[in-house]
């Protein structure tokens, strides 16, 4: 397995091997599913849409609906106007969504289809029923990554939907970043515990973690409603969780509707969660209740109890930039040593922020944006680590190098914890700590000499 990977590093300028990112549209599709009653639409050939739906389904084990413009050669030559117009007509008459969120693909980007013009024409000729909405985001995959696609679709929500009426509403917007439904649910739970009124968009909880009831609903209960996203323009402030996936949306809302933005990181670990709670408390003008402090206290207690298992352990992390930046802080709180940290996404903020975090405690850490898992594996071969944290694609490395492995981020195609256990908030940190401990101790219990195989840990 992976037996072509050696410790000897040959410089690569052109070949990407085992990428740690994917393309923009899948992020846009995921974000669009966080709008209630929304049909994501992929404007391009049908293969992209099929791949994105399959991939999201393998991650969530849930229905993932989206339509496509099904380009063939003709559309590729003459443009996709006819295809998109026909698609909109079909979508509204057969699948009756409230809103269609169009994203482009490489193909329609290269052709240069002008989506707003096509949509306007479709509207004029009556292909879009009265009261129904079409929004769009440009998501070329030769720029950025899936995280940028998410961010671009969030920006589209703001641009198309959010409005300032002049009457401020006593509510705080939260843009949660490219996180799991379980994380979004946890963020809402914390806000409710604080008694803060929030509008969160996108919100995929109750969309991509639906119950089995014997009834299929194409548009499940969950998702931020169009009315909520509209009202975001009247909120007191926006809290954006993550530079890469959330900040652009918040900045857009700030400039469009004058809603001040707090640019935070994902609330993973104690410090980042504290900052989130504190910011939300201040904007919403509420107190942190005892129950939340108790939760936090239990987390600190856990960290103190288990400190010996984590201290000084060398960790390799791969993931989306916002996730790696936030997780690194939890690892540092546990006094672990994140010696290798990569993301596949481009963007200088990653390396900048990671250096700020690691230059002091782990001076020789290797940090790289636009990197791939092949390279990370080579680093590990040169100097090993005690723990690997990555999405499912890390499992081959973990197997050949015999590493304890914690699955984290997107996608997780072979385990289920992410479907119901958050990684954000104090509870999320407990989940992560629990998974890391299990991974480390399971290996020890499997491999240690018999005399060191102990009942109590």
């Amino acid at each position, binding site marked *: 397995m992976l037996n072509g990977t050696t410790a000897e590093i040959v410089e690569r300028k052109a070949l990407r091997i085992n990428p740690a990112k994917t393309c923009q549209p899948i992020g846009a599709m995921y974000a669009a599913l966080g709008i209630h009653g929304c049909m994501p639409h992929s404007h391009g050939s049908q293969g992209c849409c099929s791949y994105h739906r399959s991939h999201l389904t393998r991650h969530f084990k849930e229905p993932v609906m989206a339509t496509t413009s099904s380009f063939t050669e003709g559309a590729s030559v003459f443009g996709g106007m006819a295809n998109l117009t026909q698609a909109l007509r079909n979508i509204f008459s057969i699948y009756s969504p409230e809103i269609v969120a169009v994203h482009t693909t490489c193909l329609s980007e290269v052709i240069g289809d002008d989506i707003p013009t096509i949509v306007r024409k479709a509207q004029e000729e009556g292909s879009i029923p009265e009261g129904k909405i079409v929004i769009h985001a440009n998501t070329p995959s030769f720029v950025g990554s899936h995280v940028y696609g998410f961010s671009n679709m969030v920006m589209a929500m703001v641009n198309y939907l959010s409005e300032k009426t002049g009457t401020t509403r006593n509510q705080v917007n939260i843009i949660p970043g490219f996180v799991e439904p379980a994380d979004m649910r946890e963020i809402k739970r914390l806000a409710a515990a604080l008694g803060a009124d929030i509008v969160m968009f996108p919100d995929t909880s109750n969309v991509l973690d639906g119950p089995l*009831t014997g009834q299929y609903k194409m548009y499940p209960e969950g998702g931020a409603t169009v009315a909520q996203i509209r009202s975001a323009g009247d909120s007191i402030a926006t809290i954006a969780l993550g530079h890469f996936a959330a900040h652009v949306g918040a900045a857009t809302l700030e400039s469009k509707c004058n809603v001040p933005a707090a640019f935070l990181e994902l609330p993973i670990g104690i410090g980042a969660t504290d900052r989130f709670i504190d910011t939300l408390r201040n904007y919403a003008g509420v107190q942190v209740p005892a129950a939340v402090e108790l939760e936090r206290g239990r987390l600190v207690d856990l960290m103190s109890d288990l400190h010996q298992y984590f201290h000084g352990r060398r960790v390799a992390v791969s993931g989306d930039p916002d996730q790696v930046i936030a997780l690194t802080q939890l690892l540092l709180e546990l006094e672990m040593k994140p010696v290798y940290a990569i993301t596949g996404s481009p963007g200088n903020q990653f390396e900048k922020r990671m250096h700020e975090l690691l230059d002091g405690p782990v001076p020789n850490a290797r940090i790289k944006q636009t990197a791939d898992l092949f390279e990370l594996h080579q680093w590990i071969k040169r100097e090993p680590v005690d723990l690997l944290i990555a999405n499912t694609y890390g499992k081959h490395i973990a197997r050949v190098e015999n590493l304890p492995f914690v699955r984290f981020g997107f996608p997780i195609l072979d385990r289920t914890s992410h479907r119901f256990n958050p990684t954000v908030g104090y509870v999320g940190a407990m989940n992560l700590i629990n998974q890391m401990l299990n991974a480390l101790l399971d290996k020890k219990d499997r491999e240690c000499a018999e005399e060191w195989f102990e009942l109590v840990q």
Partner: protein
Amino acid sequence: MSVPAHPPAAGYDSAGFPLPSAPVPESEAVRLEMLKAYPPKTRKKREKQLLANDPATPPEIGANTRTIPGIITQRGCTYAGCRGVVIGPIHDILHITHGPVGCSYYSWLTRRNLARPKPGQPVNYLQYCMTTDMMEEEVIFGGEKKLAAAIREAHAIFKPKAIAVYSTCPVGLIGDDIHSVCRKAKEELGINVFGFSCEGYKGVSQSAGHHIANNGVFKHMVGLLDEPDPQPFRINVLGEYNIGGDAWEIDALLQKCGIHVTATLSGDISYEQICKCHTADLNVVMCHRSINYMAEMMETKFGVPWIKVNFIGAEQTAKSLRKIGQFFGDQRLTDRIEEVIAQEMAALRPVQADVRSRLQGKTAAMFVGGSRAHHYQHLFKDVGMLTVAAGYEFAHRDDYEGRAVLPKIKVDADSRNIEELDVEADPQRYNPRKTPEQIAALQAGGFNFKDYDGMMAEMKKSSLVIDDISHHEMEKLIELYKPDIIGSGIKDKFVIEKFGVPCKQLHSYDQGGPYAAFTGAANFYREIDRMINSKVWQLVTPSWKKPADPALALGRGIDSPANQAVRAVVSGLAKAWKPRQAAAAAPES
């Protein structure tokens, strides 16, 4: 066609189809109901792709035509069909996708074409995903340089025997000439490097990609190694992809019979095996859709004849083995085949009978691929289940109506897009495996070459056939037919199961399998039994939402019999405890 049983076996009708235990709705009514929601133009197109079946004279079906924009389809693209299916499983060459990262990323280990490199061939590159990860700059100024550099880098790191390159949509549009890049790399590096122009928009589905892959594999690999394997009775299994280990199961069975597999195209296969597969005596075709091109080209150029087989379903497997035996016409081989069939069937029958006792009369529907929606009907039939509706995702008319219809198929613009190779007999190596007399004798004995009658001929009259089923039609189908199980793919799986209907993925097998040959059949029977009879479906409705059932009242309410019973026991214990307590408290005497 299934042979009518005289008299029909219990639970089967006179044509050999299982009798459903609940009435099946009339397919024409279902069809009209499905079409109702469509706008006129869409309806007109879909009408041709939804039909009530007639096995005797299969009606003409609209197939291999464009999917209508805005319709939620199962289909993927040409790139997926090319990169993923026929060539993707070759495990000791490198596969580089030229384009932005996504197309390559999504085709990374998501198809379950398992590989187990042979001893002495330790390389397996299938865990690698390689792409030029095209950026804006290359989209504007062209990506040929980057591709050439990527090939060079891949060669420097892995030193492979061969490199295959695949184009994605944007590449075709910006006009990169991948073939000239490959030619130059081949000269420079001294290894085999070749490209596939399989841009996603080229065809109406994955099917176009299969054709392109067939052409490329044939042109660039088949025939490079003239070293026949030493074993007698050499065949290639074409259109078998070793999903869930199917190819291993078939291989083992054939080996038991004394038949040698030179190559399986394409499952657990090495470069060398592909290069010498033209030295086999016979091609047997599993999935007609994805690989009939290869079978035809190998026959024209090298004289290797082909026959259709099917190793899915017990009877079908036995029939296929006998057909191969008949081709070779060797008495010892024929005897051995009969011996193996007898052994395997003896082991399988009790499993089949046991499972059938629970599944007889249940119904299935299948919408998948280009052959499985047909082949798997046999497995369901084995356990007494009737397939009430079925269709392919990307097949052509011949896969539905049979190859007899081939001359009548109109070649449309989308199909014309795909190159038809000009293949001629190889001046040195063309070697027809049978003389005209032998062929005539075989045919006189009922043996047919290149025979595929299609799905419709083997499906019950009036069952519903749906090509490229849409999500809307799937919903209606569940509502109206209420099938006991549906075979489909990953995108439908959880939709169907939300309705409380189990869905077996027939692309990936839900990570199960193998289901081919006799052992595989037993696996499948048990799997379907497990899925249909799973207790989980009974847990869907909480007790308080079910109609009051007197038997259930036992556990409900303070005065329920169950509570009364507990109360009696507990008060007895309490009474017994009190005197003891009194005794313990008594002052010591």
